[in-house]
């Protein structure tokens, strides 16, 4: 589904990603771990199309399409979802309006009729239950005045609404207490199906107790230096990254 080949990128002239190769097939869960500053969030942003980063080399194909040649919104409409580490607040724009527009833009892209108001509300109700999102929050402005935990739940709620083929979750577990973590993580698990795929970027093993990865990659200085199975995460939790980095060097 996602094929990343030798991806390089720079920000303000500084090279952050230095040749990433990654292949994600439908039905898989991948975890990307790595020390701070290794390029994890940058990788997610580049896939989403953030213009802050300049891709200098490499190719990415998504569902057979040239991802890098697509606009941010077309990537999203084609089924790529990024769960943001820091979801932005958009004052004055209600969640309901925002989601309605997003859902219908996606439907339009796929040649479907827009949802009726009733169907849309039903969908909102159904999906907000997945992450136990307070229905009051959906009547508020996007992320405005949400707590850290509510913002992350809101990301998963939106993921449920948009039903992406590939979800990339950037540190969705950061800043969550145990209950919120459980809700968010089980939400993601519920949304996982054999016909979609999930990439989680995380620092901690604890998220992977809920979301069991097929592959765990370690990113270091802009490259994937090691790939293992779920046991790798446990080992990293215990021993840190040093042994891997030493081995790499």
């Amino acid at each position, binding site marked *: 589904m996602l094929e990343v080949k030798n991806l390089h990128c720079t920000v303000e002239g500084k090279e952050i990603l230095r040749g990433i190769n990654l292949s994600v097939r439908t039905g898989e869960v991948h975890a990307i771990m790595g020390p701070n500053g290794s390029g994890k969030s940058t990788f997610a942003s580049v896939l989403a199309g953030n213009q802050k980063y300049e891709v200098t080399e490499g190719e990415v194909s998504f569902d057979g399409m040239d991802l890098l040649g697509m606009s*941010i919104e077309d990537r999203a409409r084609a089924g790529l979802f990024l769960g943001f580490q820091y979801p932005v607040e*958009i004052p004055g724009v209600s969640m309901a309006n925002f989601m309605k527009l997003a859902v219908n833009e996606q439907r339009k892209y796929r040649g479907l009729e827009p949802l009726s108001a009733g169907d849309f509300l039903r969908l909102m109700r159904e999906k907000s239950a997945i992450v136990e999102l307070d229905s009051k929050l959906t009547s508020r402005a996007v992320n405005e005045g949400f707590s850290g935990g509510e913002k992350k739940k809101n990301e998963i709620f939106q993921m449920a609404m948009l039903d992406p083929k590939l979800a990339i979750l950037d540190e969705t577990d950061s800043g969550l207490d145990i209950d919120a973590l459980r809700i968010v993580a089980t939400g993601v698990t519920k949304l996982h199906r054999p016909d979609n795929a999930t990439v989680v970027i995380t620092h901690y093993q604890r998220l992977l107790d809920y979301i069991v990865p097929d592959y765990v990659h370690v990113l270091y200085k802009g490259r994937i230096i090691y790939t293992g199975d779920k046991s790798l995460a446990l080992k990293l939790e215990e021993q840190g990254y040093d042994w891997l980095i030493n081995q790499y060097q």
Partner: protein
Amino acid sequence: MNRSLEQGLSELYLSNLDMIGEGLPGRLNAARSSFLESFNLSPLPSARDERYRHCDLQKLFAGEWEHYFTPSPEPGQARNRLPIEGYWIELYNGFCPTDDALVVLDNGIIYGSLRVAMREREDLVLKYYNTVADNDGESVVALNSLFMQDGAFVYVPEGVSASLPFVLSFEYGTNDAAQMCFARSLVVVERGAHADVVVSHQSTDNSRVLVDCVRESIVADGGNVNLSEIVRMNGSSTLITGHYLHQKESSRADMLSVWLRGGTTRVNARHDLAGRGCESNFYGLYFGTGNERTDICMTVNHLQPDCTSYESVKGIVSGEAVGAFTGRVYVAPDAQRTSAFQQNRNLQMSDTAKVYTEPQLEIYADDVKCSHGATVGQMDPEAIYYMRQRGIGEEEARRLQMFGFVNDIVSHCPHDGACDFVRELAEARINEL
């Protein structure tokens, strides 16, 4: 130029004195000489006057302006009326077209032509008329008082709650020469009374009009007024408005003004919190495109203790438009436990547009919570990115953000019935940007 503008206007008044005063109370007409005097003492300000830096009245009044001292015939074409059920007062070029336009309801509510009210309820009207407007400080106000022949009058007696909104619909238009109009209104809400007032200023065609408009609103102890204003003037018009609101003890005013379009719009607004425990909330929104010029000058005077005021004015300017905001919060000595907030936020959409903002605090009491803020900026690129990641196109994301920007103003429309309409107007305006 041999003759000053002021001389010209004074002569216009003097040579039509009889016509102007006809059918109006003698003591009202007698008082006009003092307005002539104050108008002559303080000439029309030019851009050299600090307060009129962004709006040169000398230039705006210059040139040939026709002024009619009798009601003009109403325009034939269909008008874009507000879809609001209410007690309507319709004015054309400042006049109520029919001379019997004064309604007295069973509960004591009076509304209709100011001219007729002055004739039929002289004592009541003159008890309030010109008690609040700044005839000494603003020459345009003195000018309006000098030429005033008609206007809108609303009176809600003690303890009465008006069940429908009063709709003051001011329309302007002329089929030939450039025309100068004077518009006047007086709203009185007595003790414990409640009134909803919706004011509309609208040009009916593309002719050049210069409107000098003054509104006085008086809210007595425990009274409550909701005031919405919608301005839709054409690009060659000039609208100069003076809004004077006087609040007594424990009264409350909730206001919304939306300046959707116009040529040059100048607003002088003064809210006096003149009794203890008043509350005043003002939300304003203006749009500027092309060569439009909007210059809003607001003062909130905290004259007594324990009052609360909130003002939020937002603007979106593009093209070569000018948006200026000057806000002053004044807290008098001994007006303790004042709480005042004022903000002006602007989206500047082009390099040729200009934004000026001057929020001011002038505080002479110490037990106060006062703050203000002003920003000039553009769209938040992070928010645009976020929306695009959810599949919303860039143009749409920008529009959505602008809707969001204006939403917290229009959502405070104090009339439930008008809210959706105002929102639609604002959104339609955004779509033009």
